[in-house]
């Protein structure tokens, strides 16, 4: 019985982590869908979200709803700017150049924000705007933090689905991800659609950043690297370019990480993720939900 409780508890832990990964993975998968680009800087947008939220909470003591809204706005703007400045000029360049530029943007964000004059290289305590309460449910414990994470993630996903599947703009995004040329022939404004994709992805990453800061209240400019890589793997796992794939992938990766720590050793946490990646790439590179045949 105790073992069952233990397992269920670890499940909850895994879902918490997975939710954050899912949010970040969405941004990766959407951008990849429209641009075939692995946006290395995405993990840093996530980091930016956490920092902006920290700044807003600690300097201005704004209520949490306002913080969410403002942070999403800021990260969305950041995503937009990055796309316009760094990626758009290279749209016809070889894909590798885009990748390298993404790496450059990522490094720049990290090191620029680590300057004392901007933010700080330190680890900062993320001010949690409320006290933690734990509720004992059946055999395990859930905290209000976890409930909030689930609620917000769920809401964000719901809104995203509405956008992508029920609106014209969303259809445009899906069309561009299938075939950019034909989509433009159909009268879709490619630039605007791509910008929208970046904006939405960045906003979601921003939300992820805030939730992460609330759950693990310590932020640092390099915090986006590993979650970024893991979220990307999650997106690949679920099927890159496919939205529900990213969500499923995020939860799978989160759960795997937690279960490996729980039953093996925390040291292998990251190692297992990569083993999963290799397996996916070898067995089904298009991912769990992937249908598209890979070009050579």
């Amino acid at each position, binding site marked *: 019985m105790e073992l069952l409780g233990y397992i269920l508890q670890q499940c909850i832990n895994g879902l918490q982590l997975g939710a954050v990964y899912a949010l970040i993975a969405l941004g990766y998968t959407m951008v990849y869908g429209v641009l075939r680009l692995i946006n290395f800087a995405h993990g840093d947008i996530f980091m930016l979200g956490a920092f902006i939220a920290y700044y807003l909470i600690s300097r201005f003591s704004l209520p949490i709803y306002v913080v969410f809204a403002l942070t999403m706005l800021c990260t969305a703007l950041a995503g937009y700017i990055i796309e316009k400045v760094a990626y758009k000029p290279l749209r016809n360049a070889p894909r590798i150049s885009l990748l390298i530029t993404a790496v450059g943007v990522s*490094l720049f964000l990290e*090191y620029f924000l680590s300057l004392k004059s901007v933010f700080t290289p330190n680890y900062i305590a993320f001010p949690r705007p409320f006290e933690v309460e734990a509720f004992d449910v059946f055999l395990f414990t859930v905290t209000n933090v976890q409930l909030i994470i689930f609620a917000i993630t769920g809401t964000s996903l719901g809104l995203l689905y509405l956008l992508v599947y029920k609106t014209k703009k969303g259809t445009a995004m899906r069309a561009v991800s299938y075939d950019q040329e034909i989509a433009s022939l159909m009268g879709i404004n490619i630039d605007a659609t791509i910008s929208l994709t970046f904006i939405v992805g960045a906003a979601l990453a921003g939300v992820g950043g805030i939730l992460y800061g609330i759950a693990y209240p310590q932020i640092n400019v390099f915090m986006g690297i590993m979650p970024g890589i893991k979220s990307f793997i999650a997106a690949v796992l679920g099927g890159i370019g496919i939205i529900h794939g990213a969500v499923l992938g995020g939860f799978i990766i989160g759960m795997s990480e937690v279960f490996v720590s729980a039953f093996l050793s925390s040291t292998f946490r990251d190692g297992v993720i990569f083993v999963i990646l290799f397996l996916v*790439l070898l067995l089904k590179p298009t991912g769990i939900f992937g249908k598209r045949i890979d070009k050579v």
Partner: protein
Amino acid sequence: MKFFWEARKVILLSALVYLVVKSVFYFGFVSQYIEQITLYALIVILTSLGLNVIYGYTGQFSLGHAAFYGIGAYVSAYLTKVFGIENVFAYIPVLFVSGAAAGLAGYLIGIPILRLRDDFLAIATLGFGTFVRVILDNSDKLSEVLGGSRGFVGIPRLTTFELAFMVAIFLILVTRNLIFSRYGLFWRCIKSDELASASIGINTFSMKLMAFTYGCFLAGVGGALYANLYTFLHPSNFDILKSIDFLIIVIVGGMGSITGTIYAGLIWVGFIEGLRIVLPAEIVDLRWVFIPLLLIGLMMWKPYGLITKSRR
């Protein structure tokens, strides 16, 4: 012998360079510090050359190059320390064994992942790189002397200027010959258009694997020289940031250009160290803000690298 005759121009030039640099060192015109970073530059050039073969010539985007560099370093460190190698001549086979170990690792990893498309290959190599780093961090569980996250100490210092220089020149020549052989031709074909290359009968997979293995071999040799130069290894030295360093050199130098890599390697090491000398401590932080900016700018201005034969 034909090998040496064909390369006579290069050999003569390198002999000249050697004499000049050696006399500068010998007569103490520059400090030990400069000597060390020159050696480091040679190592970096060699390793980046490996990445150039993999990426610049064959078009395979690898973000895990530092892992192979690390494998070569640790193998060499282990062998030289455990077998107590003091003699430079005894060291040379160790160098090649280390390179072979890295090459073997490249071969084994290459078989499954080289089938992937470039961006997936990038992630797979990134994954492998992190994986190797995790192993290195826990290496003390394998063997106490490897040190794990404490680092590997007490490696015999065997890398001398002569050794590094000659090994570098030799391998550069070998690489050059490979490039000009039909293998190099196949590699460049694959880079241009893999599908077309396959359709004219090139065994793209085995050619890609060959390029990858050879590139990893070079990285392994570079790593070995590094280990026996700095006499201390730490897993954090072999992470993605290091891989990115090599990538930057290959890109800046121009993919598909050996001389480009040489210049870029020198410029890169010189730049990093030069900034250390030039900038006062307060703004030395800014190095790492400017470098990515430069990288982005470079990509926009010359997406194919600084020094490159004009193409398309």
